[in-house]
């Protein structure tokens, strides 16, 4: 066990994966000599060589397209897209190619690859270093989408994603890259995909969050607890395939739900969650499901703390929902 932050835990996971399987390789812009712009891949090229930790040319299409080819040949590439905001030039490769290869070859070929990318705001990154594009990929049949909130889950989910036979988009909450430290095993272990976790049990309102906003949901829950409102906070961990049962059983208990995400509200993942909850727990609901989200604008710089669904916006939503 070592005290690690998210960056160190992901680095440790990549090191374990490179050690345990010769077919694993890490590739992306600046991931080698520099160790990545966030230093997530620091030291890996030194340890494993430039043919296993590849500094690639600056092309997301090239990174994702060649990674697909490598995966088709039997390698297990872990690519980094430097910021989730830069993933769109490679969108076609992820959505039309990686996600569809198994289906369109009836399982004869498949693409076991992981795409790591830092997402989200709160780092003064403005429009192009702050986005949360998860809904686009959840909407894509054939992709899995993972978003850890803490170092232990990050390493375990990453190792599970690398062993998974389907393409996985691994969203890293860069706002909390270095904010949290916890004990993380130095040896390999996995956290299964598709399992949410109740991080704060409660009886009156369910609050669903993931990634960096989990901490805001938790803070807001603690705040309203002082006013006698008992909130259950669920960390989704894997966004798709979704652990729907965990959410529904919580809502069956509380009858009230608040969903928090950074991405814009309209057609955000919260919309799907509200629909699923309404379909499955309609008769348990005591209040309308509420979404606390980013606004339907491009991501701003100066007012990013008013754009993000931070605790100051979550707490009133929890109170209103509890008292509805």
């Amino acid at each position, binding site marked *: 066990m070592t005290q690690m932050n998210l960056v160190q835990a992901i680095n440790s996971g990549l090191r374990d994966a490179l050690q345990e399987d010769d077919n694993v*390789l890490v590739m992306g812009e600046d991931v080698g000599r520099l160790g990545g712009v966030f230093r997530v891949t620091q030291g890996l090229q030194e340890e494993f060589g430039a*043919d296993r930790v590849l500094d*690639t*040319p600056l*092309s997301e*299409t*090239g990174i*994702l*397209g*060649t*990674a*697909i*080819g*490598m*995966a*088709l*040949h*039997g*390698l297990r*590439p872990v690519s980094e897209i430097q910021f989730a905001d830069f993933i769109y*030039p490679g969108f*076609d*490769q992820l959505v*039309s*190619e990686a996600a*569809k*290869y*198994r*289906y*369109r*070859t*009836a*399982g*004869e*070929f*498949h693409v076991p690859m992981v795409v790591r990318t830092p997402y989200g705001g709160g780092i003064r990154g403005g429009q192009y270093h702050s986005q949360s594009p998860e809904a686009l990929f959840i909407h894509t*049949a*054939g992709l*899995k989408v993972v978003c850890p909130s803490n170092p232990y889950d990050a390493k375990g989910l990453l190792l599970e994603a690398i062993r*998974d*036979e*389907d393409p996985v988009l691994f969203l890293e909450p860069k706002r909390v890259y270095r904010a949290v430290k916890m004990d993380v095993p130095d040896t390999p272990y996995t956290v299964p995909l*598709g399992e949410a976790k109740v991080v704060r049990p409660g009886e009156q309102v369910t609050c669903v969050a993931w990634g960096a906003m989990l901490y805001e949901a938790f803070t807001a829950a603690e705040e309203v607890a002082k006013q006698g409102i008992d909130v259950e906070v669920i960390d989704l961990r894997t966004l798709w*395939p*979704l652990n*729907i049962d965990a959410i529904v059983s919580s809502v069956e208990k509380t009858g009230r739900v608040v969903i928090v995400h950074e991405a814009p509200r309209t057609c955000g993942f919260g919309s799907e969650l509200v629909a699923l909850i309404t379909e499955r727990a309609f008769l348990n609901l005591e209040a309308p499901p509420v979404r606390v989200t980013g606004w339907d604008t491009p991501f701003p710089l100066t007012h990013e703390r008013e754009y993000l669904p931070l605790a100051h916006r979550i707490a009133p939503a929890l109170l209103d929902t509890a008292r509805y």
Partner: protein
Amino acid sequence: MHVIRDDGSLDPTRDPGLSIDEVVALYKAMVRTRIVDDRLEKIQRQGRIAFHVGSLGEEAAIIGAAGALRDRDWIVPCYREVGALLWRGYPLQQYVDHMYGNADDPLLGRQMPDHTFSRAHRYLSVSAPIGTQIPHAVGVAMAAKKRGLDECVGVFFGDGATSSNDFHAAMNFAGVYQAPVLFLCRNNGYAISLPAEQQTATRTMAEKAAAYRVPAARVDGNDVLAVWRAVRDGVQRAADGGGPTFIELMTYRLGGHSTSDDPRIYRSEEETDSWRKADPMLRLRKHIEQRGVWNDDLDGDWRAVCDGEVKECVRRAEEKPAPALVEMFTDVYEEQPWHLREQQAQCIDGPRATAEEDES
């Protein structure tokens, strides 16, 4: 580069030195591909299949390249190269079943016709968006190189694909990583309606390779031996650790872009007629006749064999039922998640759509 002269003789300075049996095999494969094309086009016109994208006039470029690649090399197709897959021994029945989307379609009716693949034949999957397969080919080549395997990759694409971002990304990666890949650009004159001259300001497609420091050749794509030689030279370069090669195969699409196209709207009959005289089959046939191994009788017999074979495949394909409805829901992921299990049950237990009206 040409090898077969107009009179059917070979240029001895460029002759790749194939045995006469090998040359006849290439010719027979070209004829078979064309007969399959003709039959599929006819049955599409009769409304019996939805669509076909053929290779009329481009058989030498496709079969010549496939012939020069070794069995262990990978083929990454665009969508007009089923001739290469058949050359590798893919069962014709399986292809025709795919064209019908029936229960024996390896794709289980999930794709339009002509979206073939085969792991056994080292032939990746056809994807309709243009150019997306080119970086895959480079990735396969990078993987083979990393694993120390003597394998290279031939990736087909058309003149239009040289405008796609995937093409440029792939060329750049291939140059940087010295990937053992052959970029096989079938310049057939048109990207649907857009002439190659309007696709790019460069004089040739091959000169684009210089920007990525990829060696390039430009050959007569209607001369099967010229294609064979250029591709085999590229295979040799790749096998020797010399990295990628770009080959522009100059040819002409004698047919429409697909059965959904009407080329009369954008090009003249005179132009197409002039290219009919350069049909790759004519020169090659002249050559093997000169060598004394082919004649009208043999030609007629072979055509009859091919025609009989494809008709029989069509007959069988039409007798087969549709794939099971449940197959619409499998292979999205390795294991079926809850939401697909649920939707599968909703679909299967739900109401059935009425059949489309029979247009034939």
